């Protein structure tokens, strides 16, 4: 286990470097002159424009730019934003907080909804409970998060006026209120997949021979389901939950946009629009790191859940 963790953490470094390099090169192929976009609509002489290019090293060939970027990266410096006069590190860390809150609350919400619902569906197979859960899942799986988001805004903000529709709040309870709707929209779309998965994993586990042994021992129905079946059903659930957590980090882009939340997602979207290369590159590295860490956690959880898995 310790070996797994160490090797994974070590491979993380080249992996993140490759991802960041690919993004770096891809950005150079995106049409549009960053210098012009930085200036915006102001009138400017060609000479001044050239000064800006020199300042940001945009006048150099791509490979030379890459060389400088690698050198800075090795020192942990993600560069400075073209547009916002600040370090990329600082900008990202500022925004990461809101996004992390959003991701974690959506994820927890999704689990709290989907696992009990999936278990109940499995136990009450082909009853109205199961059918309702299936319909719920289908709706969720087929509605994009921004659509769900808008419906939630219309209902809870516009009609009922219970919760704010925009922004990330000023901390504490205010943040909770602001993040409730976006978390619900994201959590709902995830919950659908996990509900279906939990249902099928539980049906599978409940049909195993060891369930009969557990019942023959005189254990309560609750122990049989929650201990003997659920522990075995958790393996596929953890796999998908891990993938979902990674996808959530990306998924927040849409939801932050819909709800006007200043998180990492909206930072990236804005940066792409204005060709603010350093921010896009830096954010990609952060997201890659989160993906890799989540995968590592999933692998560790496998071994914790299933003793047959040893690294």
């Amino acid at each position, binding site marked *: 286990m310790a070996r797994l963790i160490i090797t994974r953490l070590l491979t993380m470094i080249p992996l993140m470097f490759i991802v960041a390099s690919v993004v770096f090169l891809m950005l150079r192929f995106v049409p549009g002159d960053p210098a012009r976009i930085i200036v915006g609509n102001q009138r400017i002489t060609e000479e001044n424009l050239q000064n800006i290019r020199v300042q940001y090293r945009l006048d150099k060939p791509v490979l030379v730019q890459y060389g400088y970027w690698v050198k800075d990266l090795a020192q942990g410096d993600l560069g400075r934003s073209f547009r916002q006069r600040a370090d990329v590190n600082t900008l990202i860390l500022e925004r990461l907080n809101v996004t992390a809150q959003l991701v974690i609350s959506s994820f927890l919400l999704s689990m709290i909804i989907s696992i009990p619902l999936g278990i109940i569906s499995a136990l009450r197979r082909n009853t109205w409970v199961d059918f309702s859960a299936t319909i719920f899942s289908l709706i969720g799986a087929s509605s994009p998060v921004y659509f769900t988001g808008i419906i939630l805004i219309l209902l809870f903000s516009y009609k009922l006026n219970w919760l704010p529709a925009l922004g990330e709040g000023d901390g504490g309870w205010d943040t909770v209120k602001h993040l409730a709707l976006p978390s619900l929209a994201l959590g709902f779309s995830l919950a659908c997949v996990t509900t279906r998965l939990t249902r099928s994993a539980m049906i599978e586990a409940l049909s195993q021979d*060891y369930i*009969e042994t557990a*019942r*023959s*021992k*005189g254990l309560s129905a609750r*122990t049989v389901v929650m201990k003997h079946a659920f*522990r075995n059903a958790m393996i596929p659930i953890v796999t998908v939950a891990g993938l979902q957590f990674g996808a959530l980090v990306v998924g927040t882009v849409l939801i932050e946009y819909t709800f006007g939340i200043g998180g990492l997602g909206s930072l990236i979207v804005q940066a792409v629009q204005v060709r603010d290369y350093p921010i896009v590159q830096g954010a990609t590295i952060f997201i890659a790191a989160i993906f890799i860490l989540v995968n590592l956690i999933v692998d560790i959880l496998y071994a914790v859940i*299933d*003793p047959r898995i040893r690294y």
Partner: protein
Amino acid sequence: MTTTPLLQIENLQVEFATRGGAVHAVDGVNLTIEPGQTLGLVGESGSGKSVTARAIMRLVPTPPGRYAGGRILFEGKDLLGLSDGEMQSLRGGQISMVFQDPMTFLNPVFTAGEQVAEAIRAHQGASKGEARAKTIELFRTVGIPNAEERFSAYPHELSGGLRQRVMISMALSSRPKLLIADEPTTALDVTIQAQILDLLRHLQDEFGMSILLITHDLGVVAEMCDKVAVMYAGQIVEEASIEPIFDAPAHPYTSGLLEAIPSTSNDGAQFRPIPGAPPDLARLPQGCRFAPRCRYRQAICQTTPPPRVAVSPAHSARCHFAGDFKKNEPEPAIAGRTS
């Protein structure tokens, strides 16, 4: 001497709902087990022997299953009338079960010890520590070496024989009065089979329990049982104590089962498989259920279901010609499939 039987099954009916209608997996079964006795329940796959066993534990999944009739009296109480809670405390307490394949019947994600200890905690209200100590004690009783270490072994780390010993220790943990063993040796190596049977016999002496031994192996029956019931297509077709069954089977099916055992003592001449397959329970023959495969069948066998005929006070068979079917001219060969 009139003692109440430990277990008395009366006219048990278990049916399963299928697309083609209700199928009677167990159709009017009567069985009696006295305290300390071992009853062998013999039959082919699908004959209803495992369903009968699970019905005693009330482990038949309902739906699609349904206890359609009859009574299962355990020490005089009808198990089919008990509440779920009462049944739960009986399961693993006074009646317990050992299953066929100790690999799939043990939960792969819990240690062997935990799976036994939880049964002890459930029935005896023992603390974690007490349950652990009792489990290790039980492991020693069933002959698991290094019992203390094996407590925290996972099923996949144990051999088949050890796993079955774990299952047995689990079943015995609350000193049951009745142990149901559903083909307890089928999934094991031949050498281990003998050890496990030995262990069961030894434990029966020590614990004084009754055993319902389900098997398709008549050799195991001869070795282990006081009495035997032969099941075919959901019914008991013959019931007797051991010697009469082996010496003078009263039902052609039992006779066929005995002839189907390859043996060195009868010069191999008598080795003759029973042709065909058991009938589809959804489309049973009109007369005797075994008639389509029976070498001795007569006209009546194909039209009228046979009654239960007593050939001696403790020996009965469900055959029109019970006890003297061999008088009938055997048909030389019977066309294979029946369904």
